[in-house]
């Protein structure tokens, strides 16, 4: 079972290694981890996709909360949120198949960001399923390189993940 967690952390050096270290030493599996600063430069937000049952996810949340640099851990509910991943794919594109690839990219609303004589780089944003479907369609042409950012997610509507300033 995959669960997406949104984790607000202090934007300090070493925080990422503390979080990653926690996962490895407690035997938790990370599917993906994406991190960047938030609207507040002192705070970073990690989106972590965890693979595990309810017990594991509960433990992950509690153990993350024990880290002093972790400010808040929230579970992202798929139906109530938007999740996206960005992927860059370098695909073999001999002139005779180039238009076919461009056509697929258009259907997926992907962007062609670089073209050379024998290959092109395509940028695609979407949820996991869309990215996977796109990857499947490009496979026959020959994928030379593929880089994904890992999922980031945000709640729909007015619901936000913020720090309660209770003092």
């Amino acid at each position, binding site marked *: 079972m995959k669960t997406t967690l949104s984790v607000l952390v202090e934007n300090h050096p070493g925080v990422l290694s503390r979080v990653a*270290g926690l996962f490895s030493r407690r035997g938790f599996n990370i599917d993906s981890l994406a991190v960047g600063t938030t609207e507040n430069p002192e705070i970073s937000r990690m989106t972590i996709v965890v693979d595990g049952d309810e017990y594991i996810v509960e433990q992950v949340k509690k153990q993350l909360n024990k*880290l002093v640099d972790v*400010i808040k851990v929230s579970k992202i509910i798929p139906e109530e949120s938007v999740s996206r991943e960005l992927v860059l794919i370098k695909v073999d594109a001999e002139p005779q198949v180039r238009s076919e690839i461009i056509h697929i990219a258009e259907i997926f609303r992907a962007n062609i960001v670089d073209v050379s004589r024998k290959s092109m780089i395509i940028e695609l944003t979407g949820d996991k399923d869309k990215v996977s479907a796109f990857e499947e369609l490009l496979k026959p042409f020959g994928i030379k390189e593929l880089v994904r950012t890992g999922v980031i997610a945000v709640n729909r509507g007015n619901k936000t993940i913020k720090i309660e300033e209770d003092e």
Partner: protein
Amino acid sequence: MEISSAEALIRSLEIEGVSVVFGYPGGAILPVYDSLFHSKKIKHILTRSEQAAAHAASGYARVSRKVGVCMATSGPGATNLVTGIATAYMDSVPIVAITGQVATSLIGRDVFQEVDITGATAPFTKHNYLVKKAEDVPRIVKEAFYIASTGRPGPVLIDLPKDVAETRIEFKYPEQVVLRGYKPKTNGHPLQISRAAEAINKAQRPVICAGGGVNSAGAEEELLKLAEKAHIPVATSLMGIGAFPEDHPLSLGMLGMHGTPYANIAVTESDLIIAAGARFGDRLTGRVAGFAPNAKIIHIDIDPAEIGKNVKPDIPIVGDVKLVLAEILKEVYPKQPTEWNSRIAELKKKTISYDRTSRLCPQEVIEALSAKTGGDAIITTEVGSHQMWVAQLYKFTKPRTFISSGGLGTMGYGLPAAIGAKFAKPDKNVINICGDGSFQMNMAELATAVENNLSLKMILFNNRGLGLVRQLQEFYCEKRYSQVHFGFVPDFVKLAESYGIKARRIDSREELDGALDELICEKGCFLLECIVDINENVYPMVLNGSPINEMIGG
């Protein structure tokens, strides 16, 4: 006026009320020791290895309920602290460890005595700091003491690079700690507390399992009141020993792998377990599926991550065990002794037995010591058979008088911890009980004890080997005894005498009484060596994978 941040560190420690620091100097921590040289408030105890400094800080912290402080230089100094820090982490002991670090410009270049100690200790510190800016020193010290001593206590490490330590700053100690990611919850949820009280009122066969949390929170009074109000028998974990007086009719002693038969059976038969500041460690529960199979479980712990980690509770309560027990107490009805109490009394007739007909055995030494001291001593132990016998047979009646490495099981803990304990309570008799295996791990600390005129008492069970490992090999390796017998052991009496420590060796029952009197009355240090048989096993014993009511020799 500007001062170096090393001096700011020392001043910060003074403001935190630190009066004793255990440590070992070196290159990268020179500025700190230079500032310490001028301190009139802080006494520095020079140990013979850094590991002992960390254990001493731990022993000091556990007895005094204050934060223990140790320091070491970078590289090997810091790595020698590691075992002590991990030991403190597993037993939730508040210590602040300060390490020197190479200059910031050199970090990452593998220079002399450089090691990434914040990286190394991240898994077993509550938090740690690599100080990058000199002006952060006062705030970091303040935070470190706050984090170490609040919530679930634990070790915090501060790594101070040499150039940062030398940088001059305007000293101002912060009044408040602001940590948005650290807000320990101390008050239990009122609804959960009511549910717990109701469960206790309804229970017919309740048992309290008191853990180390009761000792560290100072909740012994609340525990006693609750137990007496509703006549609930109390078992403790190893770390919980002393939290409940073992001469009390409601005491079940220790439960678990080497627990008392009556504790293990009572827990198995119970219909309600009230776990107070205990984490359901594997040595306590045995096979989890067979642990108190018919009981509802109330789990009180200050660390939310412990709730449901090993055993799923029916009524979880996150909070300070002292506050939570006090609240529960208000809602619990007074009860008269019931059939369950008669059953407990019946169970308690079958005590831990051992063969005392042949030669001098360690169990009787411990029982005799217990009778002589009347529980009015601080007992430290190392790790092994002797530790289990002390846990089983010494009657502890006061909290924080049993100081032993529970979670990590660190051999070599006892002697330095005894040194720390003696600094915390100079007027108490502090007795370290050890085997010849663990004694040899940190015996260099005899010098620290003598140098500081400490009156430390030691009982050394010499069986020329590693008894508890031998026992494991007997049960799990078909008696293939691999590396558990020492080919050579020193003459411990002469060894002690070379330190100017009085010592005596006994191997018969007839000498025991006189020897213990000598040990207790001696003004200085004293070592009593008892020659014992390595084939003496610790019973009862619960085998791996068995429920705790299935005991060998129980």
